[in-house]
């Protein structure tokens, strides 16, 4: 790896650390939340927003931007964490997360937050919406990409596969789907709730250019996003990111039940300390 790349990755690591810090700041407001997901997906979102995507945070509706669709609405906390780090939102607003009249509602919605492109939350809307936007961007002869972040539990939703069929049919090579494969969903471990494996083979069979990476390995993510953008075949792209819930905070990583986490007031201090202990050098 070149020195430039090393420096880039080290900066990304520092910024991903701040994204995690932002997520904990928000979760602390309510003492609970989907903070383990936010910690787990922080590296994926950091590479998306801070490395791969063409954006102008001061102009969230800039026509030539890459689009980002948060299908998993309850990942709002993760999204606000990266939107803040990327410059869409002031850091001072984080403490309003989930409060009345806040621009940062618990479940992400298009009309509330600068940089939010869709209302997710009703799981399974992201890839179908990406198909429509992908078709629209092609009509406009735009070179923008549409990213959409899905969860692994979401892959049990039928319309995701309706969309996968059509993305391939229409050769929507401007779609880059992301799966946060953290193996946890509301009722328990996702492989036992509804197994979606073999996922790579499934999406390949649906006509996608598929990559599967360690979603907490920044250099691997950078390479995967670069590959996705530069892949020559006219196929939709998907990056399946194996992530660790709670990544960066050791005692949250170790928790068995971490889909929705409640912490005692004194534990938040511990969370900050644990995160600090893993701060990139």
């Amino acid at each position, binding site marked *: 790896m070149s020195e430039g790349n090393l420096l880039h990755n080290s900066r990304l690591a520092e910024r991903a650390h701040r994204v995690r810090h932002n997520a904990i700041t928000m979760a602390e407001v309510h003492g609970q939340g989907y903070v383990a997901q936010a910690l787990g997906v922080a590296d994926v979102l950091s590479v998306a927003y801070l490395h791969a995507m063409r954006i102008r945070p001061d102009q969230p509706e800039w026509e030539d931007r890459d689009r980002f669709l948060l299908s998993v609405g309850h990942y709002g906390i993760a999204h606000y964490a990266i939107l803040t780090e990327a410059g869409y939102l002031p850091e001072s607003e984080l403490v309003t997360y989930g409060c009345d009249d806040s621009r940062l509602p618990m479940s992400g919605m298009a009309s509330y937050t600068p940089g939010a492109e869709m209302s997710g939350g*009703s799981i399974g809307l992201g890839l179908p919406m990406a*198909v*429509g936007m992908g078709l629209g961007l092609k*009509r406009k002869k735009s070179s923008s990409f549409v990213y959409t972040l899905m969860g692994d539990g979401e892959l049990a939703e039928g319309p995701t596969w309706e969309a996968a069929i059509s993305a391939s049919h229409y050769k929507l090579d401007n779609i880059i789907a992301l799966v946060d494969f953290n193996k946890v969903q509301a009722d328990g471990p996702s492989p036992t709730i509804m197994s979606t494996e073999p996922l790579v083979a499934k999406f390949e069979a649906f006509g996608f250019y598929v990559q599967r990476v360690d979603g907490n390995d920044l250099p691997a993510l950078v390479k995967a996003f670069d590959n996705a953008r530069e892949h020559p075949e006219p196929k939709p792209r998907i990056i399946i990111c194996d992530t660790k819930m709670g990544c960066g905070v050791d005692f949250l990583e170790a928790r068995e039940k971490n889909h929705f986490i409640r912490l005692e007031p004194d534990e938040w201090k511990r969370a900050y300390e644990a995160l600090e202990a893993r701060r990139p050098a």
Partner: protein
Amino acid sequence: MNTNVQEPTVKSSAPAPSMPAIIASSVDEGHRTKAAPFGHALVELGRTRPEIVGMSADLAKYTDIHIFAQAYPDRFYQMGMSEQLMATAAGGLAKEGFIPFATTYATFAARRCYDFISQGVAEQDANVKFVGGLPGLTTGYGPSHQATDDLAIFRAMPNITVIDPCDALDVEQMVTAVADHHGPVYMRMLRGAVPLVLDEYNYRFELGKAALLRGGRDVLVISTGFMTMRALDAAKDLQKDGVDVAVLHVPTVKPLDEVTILREAARTGRLVVVAENHTIVGGLGEAVAGCLLRGGVAPAFRQIALPDRFLSAGSLPVLQDRYGISRKAVIDRIKCWL
């Protein structure tokens, strides 16, 4: 209501068929018709509005949008049998500045796509026009295809306009009107050879407005969809018996033109009959009833609507008669109530 509805008796052996079962038209004898008014109107509008695109979920031929697809093949998106995908992708196209007209049967738009239209389109104020074929009882295919509940379903959804055309003229004018209106729309659609009626009444469709098509001293029929055609026909027949029937056409079911409805219903001495090609639950009838109660107007009130049950399969004229929305059934009911 619907006390004169007769259910078919269940027989142990097959009955002798009386007529072909599938007649997807509500044209009565003596009506002029126009072919595929929706498809042709959309083609015409498309000439000057490049942002208009068409979509269908494997029902282009049966929703008349194939005419648009033939005229502008690169502006039509065939989405296959994936209505939920179509609804949400339409939202995505709208986000990119296009105005999708997305067609399927009304049953699939309403029942199958509800969440996708609610959250993928209406909540996000995406500028999509959903067009539902076979509204109410306009097919003999049975409950899978009879959209008897679509108005109730879409009335309950915030931020969507709901319209039900009477005839070919209404359909044509609605196409332009909904394209000019920014926001999600659900439009019922009549296809094939569609009756042409309203050109005799100096009528023009205005989104959100009810139109008094004829005055009358004895009865005020407040109707939507092709039941306005039935009401106008019934009014002509009843005139011969000395019954004077006014007809207020309400093509926009939501938002309801409450001002006009209250004004007309407040005129004393008239029986108010709400007529719709829809279940008695949650459609125009209940919308008008609520409006009258809130407005402190309490005329004698009756509903002509489909019963709250899954309807039979069979031939359309027989079914429309059986369930009380044929011309004859409308006349018989009004006479009975006077």
